[in-house]
C-alpha cells in the first residue's frame, strides 16, 4: 500500500515537474545590476509603451537598466550616430536594407554562431530569417547581424464568412482552388476581388505586394532574390508572367469590383469596404495584416470577417512561402547585458507579453511561443500562418532601391492596370533601374 502510494506520489511529482518545464517558465536572467543598455528604434506611440512593458520584465529579472528612445527619423539618426561614434547598444531596424547599410559602415557587431543556430532551429522558416539578417561587413565578409523580432504578414486574403456560406464557397487551400473559385464567383454573378491601389503619392504599392506574392508562388525563392537585386532584369519573362497573372485578376472587369478602371483610382483604404456592403461588391481582398484598421466600424473579427493564407500551387513544389515585413535588432555597441537582452527577446516571455496586449498585433515566427497568449483569434491565426511558413521573404519593393521600390515599380503597376502591356511596363521599370546604376 505504502509502496503504491510512494509510486503515485513520485508519478504526480514527475507530472508536476514536467508540466512546469513544459510551460517554459518565466525568464530568469543573470544578475546584471548596474549594467545599462541603450536601445533606439523607430517605434513611437503606441508601440513604444508596449515595448517598455517587454523591457520591464527584463529589468525586473536582471536588475539592468534599459533605456529605449523612439524617433520617426530613426533612419537618418542611426547613420549619424554610428558615423559619430556614439551609437546606442541596440538598434531596431525597420527594414534589412538600412541595417545592411550600417553593417557596411562597420557599425554592427556580428551576433555569432550560437545565435544564428538558435534562429535556424527555433524560428519557422529559420533559414530565411538568417539570410535576411546576414550582410557584408566593412571588409565585404558576410556575417549574421540582424535578429528579427516583431513581424507582419502580407500573404493574406480577407473575406466575409457570411458571404462565403451564403454562396456555398469554401476557403481555397491551393492556388488552383483560388483560381477556380474566382471563376466560379464570376460565373455566379458575384465579383470576386476588391483591389485598390490608391494611396496618395504612394499609389500603386498594393500591386507590388501582389506581384511579390505571385513571384514567390511561381518561382523558387532564389529567383525572387535575384529579381529584388536586379540580378534578373525586371523585364525577364518570369516577372512579366507574374504581372500578367496579377492582370488576370485586376484587368478583368468581371473579376474586380468597379471594373479594371476602378483598380488604380480606388484608395486602398476604401477598397476592403466592398466586402461589407450589401450586396457585397466583392468576395475577397488580398492585403496585409494591418488592414482591419480600415474596416468599417463595428465589424467583428471571426464573425463579420476572416482571412485565409494566399495559397500556393499544389503542383509546384515551393512549399508555403510567406511575404511580410518586420523589425530586426542589431548590436551597434556590444556589452554583456546587450547580448543577454537579445537572448531575452528569443525567450517566449518577451514575445508573449507583447502578444497579450489587446490589439497590439504582435506576431513572431518564434516556434517556442504559446499561441494561446494572443489577445484574439485573428492574431492567433495570423501567427499560425507565420509558423507554417517554409519560406519567408521580405517585401521586395522595400528591398529594391528607393527610386524603384518606392518609385517606378509603384507607378509602373498603375500604368499596367490602366491599360499598358506588361512588357511595356516591365521594360520601363528596368530602364529606370538602369538609369540609377
Amino acid at each position, binding site marked *: 500500500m505504502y509502496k503504491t502510494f510512494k509510486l503515485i506520489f513520485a508519478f504526480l511529482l514527475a507530472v508536476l515537474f514536467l508540466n512546469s518545464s513544459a510551460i517554459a517558465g518565466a525568464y530568469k536572467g543573470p544578475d546584471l545590476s548596474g549594467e545599462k543598455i541603450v536601445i533606439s528604434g523607430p517605434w513611437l506611440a503606441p508601440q513604444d509603451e508596449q515595448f517598455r512593458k517587454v523591457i520591464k520584465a527584463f529589468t525586473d529579472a536582471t536588475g539592468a537598466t534599459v533605456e529605449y528612445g523612439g524617433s520617426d527619423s530613426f533612419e537618418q539618426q542611426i547613420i549619424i550616430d554610428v558615423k559619430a561614434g556614439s551609437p546606442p547598444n541596440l538598434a531596431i531596424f525597420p527594414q534589412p536594407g538600412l541595417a545592411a547599410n550600417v553593417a557596411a559602415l562597420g557599425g554592427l557587431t556580428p551576433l555569432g554562431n550560437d545565435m544564428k543556430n538558435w534562429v535556424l532551429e527555433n524560428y519557422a522558416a529559420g533559414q530565411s530569417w538568417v539570410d535576411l539578417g546576414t550582410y557584408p561587413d566593412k571588409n565585404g565578409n558576410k556575417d549574421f547581424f540582424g535578429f528579427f523580432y516583431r513581424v507582419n504578414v502580407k500573404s493574406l486574403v480577407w473575406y466575409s464568412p457570411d458571404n462565403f456560406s451564403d454562396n456555398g464557397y469554401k476557403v481555397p487551400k491551393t492556388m488552383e482552388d483560388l483560381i477556380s473559385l474566382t471563376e466560379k464567383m464570376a460565373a455566379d454573378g458575384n465579383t470576386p476581388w476588391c483591389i485598390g491601389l490608391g494611396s*496618395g503619392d504612394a499609389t500603386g504599392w498594393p500591386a507590388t505586394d501582389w506581384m511579390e506574392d505571385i513571384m514567390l508562388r511561381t518561382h523558387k525563392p532564389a529567383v525572387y532574390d535575384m529579381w529584388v537585386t536586379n540580378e534578373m532584369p525586371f523585364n525577364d519573362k518570369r516577372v512579366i508572367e507574374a504581372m500578367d497573372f496579377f492582370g488576370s485578376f485586376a484587368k478583368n472587369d468581371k473579376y474586380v469590383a468597379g*471594373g479594371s478602371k476602378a483598380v488604380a*483610382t480606388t484608395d486602398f483604404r476604401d477598397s476592403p469596404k466592398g466586402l461589407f456592403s450589401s450586396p457585397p*461588391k466583392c468576395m475577397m481582398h488580398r492585403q496585409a495584416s494591418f488592414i482591419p484598421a480600415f474596416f468599417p466600424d463595428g465589424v467583428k473579427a471571426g464573425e463579420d470577417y476572416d482571412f485565409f493564407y494566399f495559397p500556393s500551387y499544389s503542383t509546384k513544389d515551393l512549399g508555403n512561402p510567406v511575404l511580410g515585413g518586420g523589425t530586426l535588432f542589431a548590436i551597434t555597441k556590444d556589452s554583456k547585458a546587450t547580448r543577454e537582452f537579445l537572448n531575452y527577446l528569443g525567450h517566449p516571455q518577451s514575445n508573449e507579453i507583447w502578444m497579450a496586449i489587446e490589439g497590439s498585433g504582435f506576431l513572431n515566427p518564434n516556434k517556442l511561443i504559446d499561441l494561446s497568449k494572443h489577445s484574439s483569434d485573428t492574431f492567433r491565426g495570423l501567427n499560425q500562418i507565420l509558423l507554417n511558413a517554409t519560406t519567408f521573404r521580405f517585401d521586395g519593393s522595400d528591398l529594391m532601391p*528607393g527610386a524603384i521600390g518606392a518609385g517606378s515599380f509603384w507607378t509602373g503597376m*498603375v500604368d499596367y492596370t490602366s491599360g499598358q502591356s506588361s512588357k511595356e511596363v516591365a521594360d520601363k521599370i528596368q530602364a529606370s533601374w538602369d538609369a540609377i546604376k
Partner: protein
Amino acid sequence: MSITSLFLYVFFGTAICFLYFHLSNLALDFASKKNTIKFSQKSVLRPYIFIAPAVIILVIFILYPVVETLRLSFFNKTGFEFVGIKNYVWAANDPEFKRAILNNLGWLLVVPTLSAFFGLVIAYLADKLWWGTIAKSIIFMPMAISFVGAGVIWKFVYDYRGPGDDQIGFLNAIVVSLGFEPQAWMTIPVWNNLFLMAIMVWIQTGLAMVIFSAALRGIPKEMLEAARIDGASEFKIFTKIIIPYLEKTILVIWTIITILVLKIFDIILAMTNGQWNTEVLANLMYDWMFRGGGDSGRGSLMAIVIMIGVIPIMIWNIRRHKEDEKS
C-alpha cells in the same frame, strides 16, 4: 516658446538692427571728422553700409541656394561625385521629363489665358448686376483655399466608382443621371490634363476678377458715355475700349498666373502624382529629390530647368515695370 521670450526676441532683434545702423553711422561720422576718410568717400560708403545686411541676407538665402542647386545638378545623386553634364544628357533622353515639359507648356497656354478671360468677363458682367458683388465674393472664395485643399475638393468632383455603384463624384453623378457610362476622368490622357487645369482656373479666376474689377473702375465714365452716345454696341465697347484700356492689367495678371503655373505642384501631387501622363516639372523634381533615398543631382537639374523657365518672364516683367516708371 512662451510669449515673453517671443517679445524678448523681437525686442533684441530690433535693438540689434537699430544699433547696427546707429553705430555704423556714428563710426562713419567719427572717421570723417578725424579725416581718416574724405567727405566724398563718406557719402559713397554710407549707402553700402546701410544696405549691407539686406545684401548679405539675399546672398545667403537666395544667391547661395541658386548657385548650390546649379552646382549639385552637375553632381551624382549623393552630391559628392562630379558627373559633368551626365544629368542633362539623361534628362534630354528621358521620356518622363519630356512629358513633363510638354505638360507644363500646355498648362502655360491654357491656365493664364482662361483665368484672365473668365476673370475679365465676370468682372465686366458682375458690375452690371445688383447681385454681382455676391457672385464676385463667391467666385473669389477659392483663392482662400490651399492648392492641396482644392485638390481634395476636386477629387470628389472627379471621383470614379464602377458602373452600377452610387457615384459620389459630382461629374460622374451628372454623367450617369444623363444615362451615360461613368468615366475614370483622371486616367484619360490629354483630357485629364485639362481637368486638372480646370482646378487651377477655378482658383485663379477669382484673383483675375478682383484685379479687373478694380481696373474697370478706373476707366473714365465719360469715355464710355461718349461711345454709347455715338451708338457703339456693348460688344464694341468691350472689345474696342475696355480691352485696350486694360491691356496693362491683362499683362500683369497673365504674368502672375504664368509664374504660378510654372511652379504648379500641389494639385498634381494631390490628384494624380503625375500618373496617366499628367506629370509636370515641379512634381518630377520632388519625386527625384526626395523619393526613395533621393537624387539631388537630377532633382537640382529640374529645379534649374524650372528657374530657367521663370527667368525670361521675370526679366520682361521688370523691364516693363521700369518703362512704366519712366513714362
